[in-house]
């Protein structure tokens, strides 16, 4: 692949945030038709590097050179406009879409003279052509707010292709995709690369990286830790390079299921004007992990809302420790010893502008542990936080640091510390490792397994089948608001589950009632 011309070249890029060196003299070349994977732990500097490349951030040192008509030329720093013009397209880690506009409008944005009537017809024709060539099928006229994450991502990629990008940067594109969607994305990327596009692909999922990339660049702590040709690389080597030391395997002992702690009995749920769940039955038993697979939007959020105490069944009964739950109250669930990890940890999990200590105490501020007669016991809160920081390896400046300054992985560890320290009897782990690096992922898995071994009943909701295989004792699949029966995970294969997620197969013999 290195025989094709260099499309893009970064030379000695350095970026500091105050005392922190986010990128330290990083250089890289990207060739035509090449898929380059960028790997690194959370906070290694991947997003920062890409933000510099695209002009969102201004580097302190170094240059971004892009192939133009007259050979490689430096881009003016800090100008997304210039980067776009030079043929760089970026799909951000957090989508940059105007949700009140249609997909087509988002694609057109900024491509036509502002003071004109625009050329919607031409634009539509061009996007249709690109869709036909790339296979990125999506309804262009729906409001982005109404699209699924997968569709939003396709819009993001179409945005880049519409501008005739030579280089496409994807920052953790699969973090929010289902396995099927991710697979679809890889097909598209391979096709685009074959047509000469250069792709930089950031991911924490080593399997994907190995499957799709030609070359791998690993960052660690802001510096380049190494560069590998994918064909010669293996999982272990990459993981060790990322973390700087060997990553320990998570070991799992067989489960010893006990009594049923949480039970859904013919539960239906209406939410947001539609039927989210219909006639769902499920038992969570002590000392057992149930893995819930499914394409997002099929009812997972309904189940999560019920177990979080945010909703009660419209019909049917939900029993906690044998007693029917009548009213929705997150508080009651917390008090009853249910640990809940929200799907969207930044949005529902932490109050970004409050401190780590506050966020760890938030479920419990009214308990005597943290307050007396309505007055906060700051000392106790801070002590608990310090213990959590040490015990769960939450990387942050200290208990008083604002939670917004933590990376996603560390926010997740903070939430783990908050909910697991209360020794919960029931645990809801909703997308527990989304976007986390391998090291952090292993840590979270270890904690969840430890809780199970202690006797907790756990429901893991995940779109990452690897994760479910690593954790679940039993498997259920949700499709269109209905649950399959929960069967043991031994002997299951991905293909069957994939088909069930797509609603195309009945449970095989392995998952029997």
């Amino acid at each position: 692949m290195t025989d094709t011309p260099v499309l893009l070249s970064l030379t000695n890029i350095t970026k500091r945030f105050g005392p922190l060196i986010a990128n330290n003299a990083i250089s890289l070349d990207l060739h035509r038709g090449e898929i380059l994977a960028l790997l690194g732990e959370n906070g290694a500097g991947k997003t920062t590097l890409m933000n510099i490349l695209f002009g969102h951030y201004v580097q302190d040192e170094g240059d971004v050179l892009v192939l133009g008509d007259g050979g490689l030329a430096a881009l003016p720093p800090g100008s997304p406009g210039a980067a776009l013009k030079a043929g760089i397209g970026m799909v951000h880690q957090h989508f940059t879409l105007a949700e009140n506009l249609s997909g087509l409008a988002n694609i057109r944005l900024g491509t036509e003279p502002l003071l004109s009537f625009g050329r919607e017809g031409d634009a539509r024709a061009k996007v249709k052509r690109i869709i036909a060539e790339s296979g990125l099928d999506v309804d262009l006229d729906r409001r982005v707010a109404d699209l699924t994450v997968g569709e939003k991502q396709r819009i993001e990629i179409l945005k880049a292709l519409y501008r005739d990008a030579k280089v496409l940067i994807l920052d953790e594109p699969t973090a929010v995709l289902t396995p099927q969607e991710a697979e679809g994305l890889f097909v598209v990327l391979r096709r685009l690369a074959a047509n000469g596009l250069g792709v930089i692909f950031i991911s924490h999922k080593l399997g994907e990286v190995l499957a799709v990339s030609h070359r791998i660049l690993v960052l660690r702590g802001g510096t380049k830790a190494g560069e590998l040709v994918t064909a010669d690389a293996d999982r272990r080597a990459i993981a060790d390079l990322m973390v700087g030391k060997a990553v320990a395997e998570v070991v799992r002992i067989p489960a010893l299921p006990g009594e049923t702690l949480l039970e859904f009995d013919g539960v239906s749920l209406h939410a947001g004007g539609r039927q989210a769940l219909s006639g769902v039955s499920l038992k969570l038993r002590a000392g057992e992990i149930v893995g819930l697979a499914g394409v997002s939007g099929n009812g997972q959020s309904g189940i999560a809302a019920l177990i979080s105490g945010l909703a009660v069944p419209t019909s049917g009964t939900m029993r906690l420790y044998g007693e029917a739950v009548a009213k929705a109250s997150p508080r009651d669930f917390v008090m009853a010893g249910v640990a809940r990890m929200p799907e969207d940890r930044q949005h529902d999990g932490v109050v970004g502008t409050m401190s780590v200590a506050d966020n760890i105490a938030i479920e419990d501020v009214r308990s005597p542990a943290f307050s007396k007669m309505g007055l906060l016991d700051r000392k106790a809160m801070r002590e608990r936080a310090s213990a959590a920081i040490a015990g769960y390896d939450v990387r942050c400046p200290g208990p008083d640091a604002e939670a917004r300054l933590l990376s996603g992985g560390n926010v997740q560890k903070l939430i783990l510390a908050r909910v697991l320290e209360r020794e919960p009897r029931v645990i809801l782990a909703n997308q527990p490792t989304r976007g986390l690096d391998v090291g952090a992922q292993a840590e979270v898995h270890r904690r969840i397994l430890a809780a199970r071994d202690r006797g907790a009943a756990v429901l893991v909701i995940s779109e990452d089948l690897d994760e479910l295989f690593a954790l679940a004792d039993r498997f259920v699949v949700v499709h269109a608001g209905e649950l399959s029966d929960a069967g043991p995970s031994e002997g299951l294969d991905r293909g069957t589950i994939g088909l069930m997620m797509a609603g195309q197969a009945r449970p095989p013999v392995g998952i029997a009632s």
Partner: protein
Amino acid sequence: MSFRLEPREHASVGLKLTVSLAAGIVALLLVAIPVLSAGGSPIEAYGLMVQGAFGSMFALSETLNRATPLILTGLACAVAFRAKLWNIGAEGQLYIGALAAVCVGSGLLQLPPALMIPTVMIAGFLAGGLMMVIPTIIKQRFGADEVVITLLLNFVVILFIQMLVEGVLKDPLSMGWPQSVPLIAEAKLPKLLPRLRMHWGLIVGVVAALILWLMVRKTVLGFEIRAVGENKAAARFAGIPVDATMLKVALISGGLAGLAGVGEVAGVKGYLSADLSPGFGYSGIVVAMLAGLSPIGTVISAVFVAAVFVGADSMSRATGISSYIADLVVALSLLCVLVGSFFLRFRVKFERRQVGA
């Protein structure tokens, strides 16, 4: 040469002082423009402003007297804004608080001052609070924006007050002038010093600020308010009763504005009329935001805003410049302090860097 902004984690006390001073100096320089355009001497005007605000016991009393309602409406806004409850209706709540004070304090109850004054204040607090609880419930039930509802309610309330003071509450001894029956002597807030308008409302305001400060920093309620204000979804998920917390905030916020109204009728005016407040409710927003929503800061910024107004107004009389200059000076000072707050949040870094070097 380009510049970029770096956020500051913390602003030192020294920096805060420097910035406040600089903002003050810039404001003074700007004030020179209208003063000169009206043919006055800026230097003289500055001196007269300081004198008018602080130059005598009388001036000081007037400044503090004007600061009193501003402290309370400022606190009303500060506590609500912390919870992201955008209460723009402090003006109306002030009037409703004053109305409640008149209802219970003009003879309906006959109690000694030690009981009467607290009764009047509680009535004003509850009435003002209710006036904010209603839009909050509307917001929770129907999703209607509280900014707009509270804003519109200000107009409704003032008309309602006009109706009452021309109607059922009208003082038969007022010779037809639309004003309410007066408070009885027992219900009036005592003056702090004889012959000066400064009254006990000031103490109420300062104590309220201290209580709020304690509440924000030390209490579970303060914690929950912060959480709800900063991230409602996360607060709800963590089991904080969001709606109930909002209602408590609404009650406190409206209640404080109501207390401001009580102070004006019971401490200054003695009766209710539709011109009780020259916009204290709206100024409260400014006072609270200048203080960065800090309760103690609110006291300081209320005194600042009051001093600027009283000083500039007095200066206009001493120099013969149009009295509209007082509001102009307040506006300029406000904007300068606002710009100053920018430098507390960001460090401006100038840098030279070549492209493609």
